[in-house]
């Protein structure tokens, strides 16, 4: 029964499309001859990889907003924290190849005249530790934050505003040089990951495929969560929080659990994002970024999971196209998208498609009876 609901029609489509992407993109990049129409140039692979990471981030937002009604305007913070954890590992891998050739200290610390590695940088030279931290740090922050917020029943716009305050505070903090995260410039100039050079086409292909796999796993996890009994309670919380509480459910526990899970997914997305774009800086914490993630979800369709993935891919592809062709119109387009989607497509593309499908079938259904009547008359 469970496997059946897990692999419903939507999941099958999503998973098959992701599988196709994981096969076709490497093939078009590696096998097709350069210059042929089918060839995907090297710089497009990390770009697509970036979209896939954004899709995972959108998925994590959809999990809490679409199914539990928690509108987080600070999910970019968890994404960036995961990214910083990965960035710290990559930074340590540079070793003596930095500009200042210090075997231990990253360049910016030498520049700031620091003598030794701060305590929180220890262990990051070891990949499993860094990968674990990309999960634990966002998870811990979201747990503490959520525990405080949900326990005292901060809901609705108030919650949105304080999540925004959280990411804003983190942005200010990471901009400080004294924090030990490279300040304004962030972490960059990465050389290799687990011994593989980041610039090489094959590493990028592997990272892309890994991102797609992570997205697929994330999707399955979210689907499993929302299909379970736990997921039903989440939807109940979304639709009638007080009533769910009066029915005896500990609403804050459910919210906290899903919020933490979602933050960890965002952390994974960030950790996969950084090696592909080659930089992480405090700008990722900007409140505007987190708000943009929400619109990806809204465009695709809130509460559909697959819609979040579709929205993230579409909006980001649009952004890349717009900023290349009409850079000054991108903000008009994005702003217009916010207004249009909230006003005219409250359920996003997926919802609109579903409504259309219903309308069509209703029209078909309403057309049939007269026929059958006439048939009956005959």
């Amino acid at each position, binding site marked *: 029964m469970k496997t059946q609901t897990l692999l419903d029609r939507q999941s099958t489509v999503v998973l098959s499309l992701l599988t196709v992407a994981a096969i076709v993109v490497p093939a078009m990049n590696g096998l097709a001859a350069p210059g042929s129409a089918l060839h995907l140039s090297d710089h497009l692979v990390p770009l697509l990889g970036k979209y896939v990471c954004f899709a995972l981030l959108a998925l994590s937002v959809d999990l809490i907003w679409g199914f539990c009604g928690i509108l987080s305007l600070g999910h970019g913070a968890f994404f960036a924290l995961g990214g910083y954890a990965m960035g710290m590992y990559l930074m340590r891998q540079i070793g003596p190849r930095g500009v200042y050739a210090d075997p231990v200290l990253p360049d910016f610390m030498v520049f700031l005249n620091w003598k030794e590695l701060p305590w929180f940088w220890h262990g990051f030279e070891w990949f499993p530790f860094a990968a674990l931290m990309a999960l634990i740090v966002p998870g811990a922050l979201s747990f503490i934050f959520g525990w*405080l917020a949900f326990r005292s029943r901060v809901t609705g716009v108030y919650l949105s505003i304080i999540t925004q305050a959280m990411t804003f505070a983190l942005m200010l903090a990471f901009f400080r040089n004294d924090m030990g995260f490279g300040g304004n410039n962030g972490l960059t100039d990465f050389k290799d990951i687990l011994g593989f050079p980041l610039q090489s086409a094959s590493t990028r292909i592997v990272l892309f495929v890994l991102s797609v796999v992570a997205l697929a796993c994330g999707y399955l996890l979210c689907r499993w969560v929302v299909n379970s009994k736990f997921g039903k309670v989440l939807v109940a919380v979304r639709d009638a929080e007080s009533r769910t509480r009066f029915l005896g459910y500990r609403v804050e526990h459910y919210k906290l659990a899903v919020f933490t899970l979602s933050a960890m997914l965002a952390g994974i997305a960030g950790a996969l994002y950084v090696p592909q774009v080659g930089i992480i800086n405090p700008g990722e914490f900007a409140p505007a970024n987190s708000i943009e993630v929400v619109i990806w979800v809204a465009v695709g369709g809130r509460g559909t999971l697959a819609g979040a993935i579709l929205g993230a891919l579409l909006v980001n592809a649009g952004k890349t196209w717009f900023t290349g062709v009409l850079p000054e119109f991108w903000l008009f387009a994005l702003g217009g998208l916010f207004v249009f989607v909230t006003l005219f497509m409250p359920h996003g593309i997926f919802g609109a498609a579903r409504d259309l499908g219903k309308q069509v079938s209703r029209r078909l259904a309403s057309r049939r009876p007269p026929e059958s009547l006439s048939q009956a008359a005959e």
Partner: protein
Amino acid sequence: MTTLRTIFWALVLLAGMTSVAMAGPYEDALPRFAADSYADTEAAIAAVTSSGHSLSLRVIEALRDGQLLVGAGQVVIRDISGPLVDAAKGQPSGANAGSLKPVRVNNRVRRAIEAALGNLTLLSTDPGTRLEAARAVFRSRDAAALPTLDKAIAQETSPNVRKALRTARAAILLNKADASSADRLGAVATLKERGDQEALALLSSLPSGTPSDIAEAAGKATDSIRARLALWSAVQNIWYGISLGSVLLLAAIGLAITFGTMGVINMAHGEMVMLGAYTTFVVQELIRTYAPGLFEASLFIALPLAFLVAGVTGILIERLVIRFLYGRSLETLLATWGLSLILQQAVRTLFGPTNREVGTPAWMSGALEIGGLSLTYNRIAIVVFAILVFAVLQLVLRYTSLGLHVRAVTQNRRMAGSMGIKTSRVDALAFGLGSGVAGIAGVALSQIDNVSPNLGQGYIIDSFMVVVFGGVGNLWGTLVGAMTLGIANKLLEPYAGAVLGKIVLLVGIIFFIQRRPRGLFALKGRAVEA
């Protein structure tokens, strides 16, 4: 006019003749400049300064500027315009410029020159020059100036300059080993009265060998000055806090109205502030082109226009977008965010991405000095303006029918509707009012911030914090919230730095929300839990 000039020249001639007639210390000192020895030059400076001769100032100034020339037994001043003047007589000199060379100076001599100039200008007829001179002596602490100082104090009429002269005298006496004990104790008292950083430096660096009673008095004086300075700096910080608080109040008060009545967060609120600032810019541009005489009043002309521009934009937003999202506050948040992006980009396309120059009227520049405080007029104007806006809004909400309706809808929308209040009309008007207030906030902020398309973005998070902290029960919450955050921010700054202070505050608010999820002044009653 001509008669005056004749009399003047006659006096000059007379002075010249008397100086020729009596060879005094001044004439004796002059040849020493020619000795080409720094020690002699220094002695000559001292002698010339204390001679009281009418040409002394001119000689020393020429020496400073490298225009005092010597040669062939003559000392000559070269005027800026070129001709040579005999330093002894003040009359044109027939000396051959080729045979003259400037008197050489080194650092020691330069210091002597500075001190001498300070002494000489102490007796100037212009109070401003005297004040400058007194300050110069205070810094140089040249004991040679003491007689001149005493003379200057005796004849000083301006209390301000007199005070400066007395502190200069005290500075000299304090460090003068052979001054009487009473004099030096008096000096400590005078400096304690002055009570600023410079006095503190003087009192805390007494030369070794100072008698113990004086050292003790100086120690006590430094303690009291330190305490006073700390107090003043705390007061100054509180003032900065109040000033920041009024800026926050201006930015947030409109938001509090719209959030209070409709429960929607208007993310485009910051852009209303920006529109107000750009209105000010346009008004000033028009005034500069068509009626430059009105510039001083430009801000008063801009105020109603900014209210209209932002208010009408607000009503349009409410009618065209927000109305359709009633009851879906999170969607409203997203839609208004989209609108804010559009407005920002529209302004960027129209006016360019760079900062626009908004002028400050003359009456708003300058600063008011009270004790150890320095209050700039534009900050004072903004504080006063913020209080005015707050008071007017309170009156509007309390005594007009619009205010009554807004308050009713805030408290219980459905009940208000049942009583015959047209809630949708109230929504539109409240939104217009809130946006209009944001617009006039923009006029004020154009005076202290860069007018750029991003102006609003800088205030939006802070305004939210104020509203969330203060609660939407009534406007007092906004006032208390704005002032608390402003003052707390400025009091934290000296200890934590600007950025860390702000982080501490944000984290503080996040924790505060746990204790009071609806802010300081929350609405009470069943309607809240809707």
